[in-house]
């Protein structure tokens, strides 16, 4: 077992997901099976291979830093669950 139930709980916390006890055991099983399968990659010596950051010859895209029209504020806020005074409203952060 590569991943313990405790690891899975930790992963869930950083992924901002809450798991039931049943979930924890199911995800532990899934992740171990998946990673066992992925260990196949270790068979291959890649010490001399460059990682593929992209597969097409693309270059960094630069443009002038000029102000252009963007989405209207009301539209940007239109899908927000809660809005107040033209801003996104969220519950308190500091307890």
């Amino acid at each position, binding site marked *: 077992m590569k*991943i313990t139930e405790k690891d*899975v709980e930790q*992963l*869930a916390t*950083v*992924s*901002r*997901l*809450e798991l039931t006890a049943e979930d924890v055991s199911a*995800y532990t099983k*899934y*992740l171990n*099976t*998946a*990673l066992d*399968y*992925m260990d*196949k*990659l*270790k068979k*291959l010596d*890649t010490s001399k*291979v*460059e*990682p*593929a*950051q*992209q*597969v*097409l010859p*693309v270059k960094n*895209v630069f*443009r002038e830093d000029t102000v252009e029209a963007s*989405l*209207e504020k009301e*539209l*940007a806020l*239109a*899908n*927000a*669950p*809660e809005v107040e005074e033209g801003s*996104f409203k*969220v*519950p*308190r*952060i500091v*307890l």
Partner: protein
Amino acid sequence: MKLLNMSLAALHRLLKEKKISSTELTKEFLRHIQKAEPNLRSFLTITEEIALRKAEETDKKIAGQQPIGILEGIPMALKDNICTEGIPTTCASRILENFVPPYDATVTEKLKEAGTVLVGKLNMDEFAMGSTTENSGFYPTANPWDFARVPGGSSGGSAAAVAAREVPFALGSDTGGSIRQPAAFCGVVGLKPTYGAVSRYGLVAFASSLDQIGPLTKTVEDSALVLNIIAGHDPKDSTSVPFIKPDYTQYLENNVKDMKIGVPREFFAQGLKPEVQTVIEEAVRVYEQLGAQVEECSLPHMEYALPAYYLIASAECSSNLARYDGVRYGYRAKAEDMIDMFTTSRTEGFGQEVKRRIMLGTYALSSGYYDAYYAKAQKIRTLIKEDFEQAFTKFDVLLSPTTPTIAYRLGEKTDPLALYLGDVYTIPINLAGLPSISLPAGFADGMPVGLQLIGKHFAEGILLRAAYTFEQNTEHHKKIPAWLEEASKNVF
């Protein structure tokens, strides 16, 4: 040939010659959708009013003797991860159930400008993660050839809708086979363009280095016509490649004489069902008889593609889906404080498969494991890409089955890893960013089988020519499900 079954060029002729109005045409498809949907459920949203308004615009142009574009006035539908201004775009996820985009994706805008009539948004696996459309947060879609089977995924709604003639064409997205696999399962043509050939602006991101939008159509000619509209450089997508866009219809030539076709033996290995293999071997014979030079070849690193893909795709997904936090859009759960709000919104909003991939991706990116998994997968990606480059020094096109099996029964596949294995022939192509097309090659157990052709970067033209030639010399694409025969007979 009846209306529902007509090619885009034939529909265009009818509109131009005023034999039918766009309004009548749109109503005909909407009526058929109403009839077919109880069995299929390809759609998540039907936009009847918007469609009829758009159709009227075309009708006014025609009445005013103005020329109309080739796709103008023709109905179509979009996978529900493609943003449509003012029309819900849910990604088939509860977390985006009420999301109404304030802008159009570039492809939506282009199709709008071309005068096409959007009749609705199509079902999919949640956030495009899945191969059956059973991961939709709302309901599964059925395969038009057998309602007890899946249409494939993740663009299952798009493939089913075209196969059932609910729309003349649809767009889907393909991250690891999500256009080609459902196209194969439903017996339609599915094209995944070269990475960077079609703008991803406004496509809700799953795995940004792999995602690509493409058409699902009844024929190869239709595929070229839709690609003509949607392809091209877009400054709003920094990974969009500036290239000279050809008229793709110029490649629709019934000729593969002296074309060099490679058949990678790794795509005929473990897991390939004999009845699928038989159909593909027959397709190889068709090409040989037509004068193509077909030869076996090898892509030695293919066995590593699937594990590398799931690491890269999951890593990118975990990063892309971090934005669903209940603050700016999407579902928000009731909560006492901010962290609790993030966690509860995501826990209640995401489905199981999405959570699995977020967890796997978070693990692959976490410190201590990054080099062993994510970095390693990126190196494998280089090897996969080089394998293809090597093969393309000798061949114009590569040929394989699209999938190892025919469409699964609904509920048949419950083990996620077993499902991933079904994508083994489509995934390497996304890792290498290559264009690829799936087209109807025949039937096994009464279900469609897909033939996959793979080309060099930006060689959509030669792919279309190879596909078109096969289609012109076979009848498979003309077959439609029995229940549809009746429906299309009665129209027009």
